[in-house]
């Protein structure tokens, strides 16, 4: 499965790129995070405390337990600070 993975704010800064294409067989978001974390230290740094990371699947807020089947775009970012 091929996913577009986007990063924002300090998650982006830690990982070093705003977006990338990821080949993965991860079933859930949590699986994808675990897989990325083992790849390189910068992912481990970004995902060190998941209580401070939010995820959106195809531009809709979601949870780490959500399944990735059919998803094209995954985004990771800190809690939002709009307004």
């Amino acid at each position, binding site marked *: 499965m091929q996913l577009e993975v986007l990063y924002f*704010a300090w998650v982006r800064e830690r990982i070093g790129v705003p977006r990338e294409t990821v080949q993965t067989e991860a079933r859930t978001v949590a699986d994808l995070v675990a897989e990325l974390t083992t790849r390189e230290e910068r992912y481990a740094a970004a995902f060190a405390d998941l209580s401070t990371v939010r995820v959106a699947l195809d*531009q809709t807020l979601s949870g780490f337990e959500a399944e990735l089947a059919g998803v094209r775009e995954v985004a990771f970012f*800190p809690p939002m*600070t*709009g*307004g």
Partner: protein
Amino acid sequence: MDVLIQSEVFDAGAELNRFSQRAANNGAGAVVSFTGLVRDLADSPLSRMEIEHYPGMTERAIEAIRAEAVTRWSLSGALVIHRHGQLAAGDPIMMVATAAPHRVDAFAAAEFLMDYLKSRAPFWKKEVTAQGASWVDSKAEDEAALDRWA
């Protein structure tokens, strides 16, 4: 246009007048506006504020919030403007305007929109001073504010 996501500065007063004029023609007796301004910092003067956003999701999220407000209250109009990019101290960051026949609806809808924009619209603020840059932390009280609409 009822949702504007833009880097350009906007004129809150001119937007309010344009919005009120349309709302009056639509039966409004009450117009509420909220404007968020870039605050300077107490400890170290702010060089600028940078606002990052998630193009595409931003518009979707705000449209969804706006549609929910229109469902919950009897409104004559609802407007959201939010900037991204580089902002200076004192600049308007964003504004919300709501109009309704009665004030209770206009106030409630404006507070609802603000509470959701704070925690559910994909914007991230960074404060830049001579000492460096830091991301603005989200506040537990902003997340808690959503409970009253549940």
